């Protein structure tokens, strides 16, 4: 699918944080953890998307975004099962289209339909409906906050849990010293195989990059999908004040590539000049603690490093 990006976008790009919309589109007061990286990502995204939105929210940590009778959003919010946010988005989109085309709903009252879902919903239960929706060219924005486990239920392993991470269902034991023995699913690649108009990975630590990507997506039609790395102080085991440091290290070590997919081409929009060793990222999180103590597991760390190196080899100039 070919994307149409207006030329005017180039000039109106965000360049510094003070260019961001000063209005907060998500009110404070939600019960999400202090220092939530996912909330920071969604906050920045909503600053661009504005209030004419309808959010279809899968069960997950962000269940706590809106707890009846309270909502932090200016637009509407529809709560769904873990596998249901994309079918819900289809229903809402169809209803809006029918009302506009058959029942005279003015076009200015149209809403941008947004799916907000965690990595568990996105990689596991909700993957098949998403595949179908991209195939049908559903006009929606998908925001996946990726904290690499089922965070809301106490941090169980998901399809996005990385190799070597300790989760409640992949603890490190003498038989399984790595903790999680599976590697993270390549969700970007799975989505890319469907050839939608736009896919991007974003980090809360890169507000300008994130905002420009949402701005670009907002001007487009069809399925536009985002993966937002969401450092999780509670589940990953680090001090809440370090959320942005962890997000930065994920990019600097090359573990989380910041990229976008437009017109069949992948571009890395923030590329580490010289990648730091992965252990700089791993050693700061309790979920990887067993790789360093009581005995250093160089074999597992080396495997994680070689996976990262293999990824970047595809793109080395």
């Amino acid at each position, binding site marked *: 699918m070919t994307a149409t990006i207006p030329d005017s976008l180039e000039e109106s790009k965000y360049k510094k*944080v*003070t260019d961001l919309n000063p209005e907060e589109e998500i009110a404070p007061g939600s019960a999400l953890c202090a*220092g939530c990286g996912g909330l920071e990502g969604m906050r920045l995204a909503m600053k661009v998307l504005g209030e004419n939105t309808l959010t279809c929210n899968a069960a997950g940590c962000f269940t706590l975004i809106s707890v009846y009778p*309270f*909502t932090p959003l200016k637009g509407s919010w529809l709560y769904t099962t873990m596998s249901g946010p994309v079918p819900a988005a289809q229903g809402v989109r169809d209803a809006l289209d029918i009302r506009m085309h058959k029942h005279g709903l003015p076009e200015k009252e149209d809403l941008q339909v947004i799916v907000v879902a965690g990595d568990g919903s996105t990689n596991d239960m909700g993957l098949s409906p998403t595949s179908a929706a991209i195939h049908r060219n559903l006009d929606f924005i998908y925001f996946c906050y990726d904290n690499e486990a089922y965070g809301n239920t106490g941090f169980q392993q998901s399809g996005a849990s990385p190799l070597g991470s300790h989760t409640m269902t992949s603890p490190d034991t003498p038989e399984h010293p790595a903790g999680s023995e599976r590697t993270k699913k390549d969700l970007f690649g799975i989505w890319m195989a469907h050839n939608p108009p736009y896919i991007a990975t974003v980090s809360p630590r890169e507000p300008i990059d994130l905002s420009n990507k949402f701005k670009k997506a907002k001007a487009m039609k069809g399925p536009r999908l985002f993966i937002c790395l969401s450092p999780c102080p509670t589940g990953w085991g680090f001090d809440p*004040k370090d*959320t942005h440091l962890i997000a930065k290290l994920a990019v600097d070590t090359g573990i989380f590539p910041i990229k976008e997919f437009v017109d069949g081409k992948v571009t890395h929009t923030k590329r580490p000049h010289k990648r730091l060793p992965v252990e700089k990222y791993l050693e700061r999180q*309790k979920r990887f603690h067993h790789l360093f103590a009581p005995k250093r597991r160089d074999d597992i760390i080396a495997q994680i490093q070689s996976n990262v190196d293999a990824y970047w080899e595809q793109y080395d100039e």
Partner: protein
Amino acid sequence: MLRIRLHGRGGQGIKTASQILGTAAHLAGFQAQDFPLYGAERRGAPIVAYARFSKNIVLERGPVAQPDILLIGDETLLSDPMAAVTQGTDASTLIFINSRHTSQDLKKHYHLESLPVQLDISELCQKYIQKPMILSTALAAVGVRLMGHIDLHHLLQAIREELGQGRINPEKIAANLTLAEEVFQKAPSFDLEFSESDNGFSASRLVILERRPPVDSAPLIFATGNMAQRKTGNWRTHRPVVHNEQCNGCGICYARCPEGDIRMDANDKPVIDYDHCKGCLICVEECPKHAIEIIREVESWN
């Protein structure tokens, strides 16, 4: 039966404190029950845990509505009506407050019916484990002391067992044991009497709720962004304070605050919304000019 209720914030080790208490009582020969109340609780949010001990089988279930002992790990919760810390207490309730204030001042300020037991366990936690707000061991030690009937070695064994299950290194466990001994020596002992005539079960008194205008309980869901009516400022254990003279107005703190609690004023200086700031301290960490200071929220009044 003896009923204990523990109050604190997510991340302070309140659940672990109840587990240590339960295990210590079990080792001392009691029938024991301990459990936290789970909901949408998060780090910093008010947390409740319960314990029941008896020489006979404990058949009573559910939250403890009328505690014999109330252990309050975080004094700031007393100013928060939502946390309902003193609910179900009366003049006979033995109340412990982790505070720097005197018992007399605490009683007067919070309109308590009985004179509370006071000890600054945060200071001891800072001294022994360098974490003033990880209260699990110290609060359990206070609980053991207040109820009596449990020896120091039972407490220490319980700490070894409970902390040994977590991913805690041996040096930290040793530091916790020293901390527990110190608190055990410092906290007063009461050796509370166990009334065992009640065959393990007693019905809770009916709580008659005060009549309030409907608008108090039913804010308009049609109002956008009404989540702001919920104040999360009480989650905070530390307060970020901006020093404007050092601030260069770059807006990094505003951009990085996940809650959107920082706005830039007309002079490009950040203004923090303390009603909602959860105290993650990202702004302190990220400020390139180190213009934001951390102040510990130790008490509700000065």
